[in-house]
């Protein structure tokens, strides 16, 4: 049974997992950026309502 095939599959498995981890890390960062943005908007909104008083 070709050992090369098995080794190739194992390398592919590792590469897939690594790539998926990178994708999740980037997604997490984009989520954080979204929360930062929403937080800024919320604080701006609070400032505006305070200034309005």
């Amino acid at each position, binding site marked *: 049974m070709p050992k090369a095939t098995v080794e190739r599959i194992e390398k592919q498995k590792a590469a897939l*997992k690594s790539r998926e981890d990178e994708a999740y890390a*980037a997604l997490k*960062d984009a989520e*954080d950026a979204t929360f930062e943005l929403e937080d800024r908007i919320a604080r701006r909104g609070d400032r505006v309502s305070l200034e309005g008083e």
Partner: protein
Amino acid sequence: MATLAQARAWLDEANLSPNDRKAAEAEYAEKVAEGLTTAAEYRARAVDVVQAVGSIGFDRSGEARDEAKELAESIRSGRTTSADASKSLERLTAKIALAADARSRFESAAESVAEIDADPEAWVDHLYERFPIIQPNFTFLT
């Protein structure tokens, strides 16, 4: 109809004449060879699936990673609204989930390849147990 293991067990216990023994063992060997051919064919298909799904999954994960990085940069530089960011996040989450599903299928196919490599005869017998309709017909058992 029987699995290879059942046929082997019967042959090991049976009291046959030399001629009948020779014929029965030849038939058994033929059915084992057919089973090993089935295992090899399945393995070849599983390897194709592994490689195709693995390749697509790898590319899709990479696309999702790059899009998520661009999105984060776009949000932080003020080019994306909160509403658009949320929509994009949803889309990317779904895309990464698809890639994760592809990886799961890849691993499943890769496991089948490993099982067949470890013991192709046992693998094909397991298939015969799960699907009795495809069990070989041993004439010496009838």
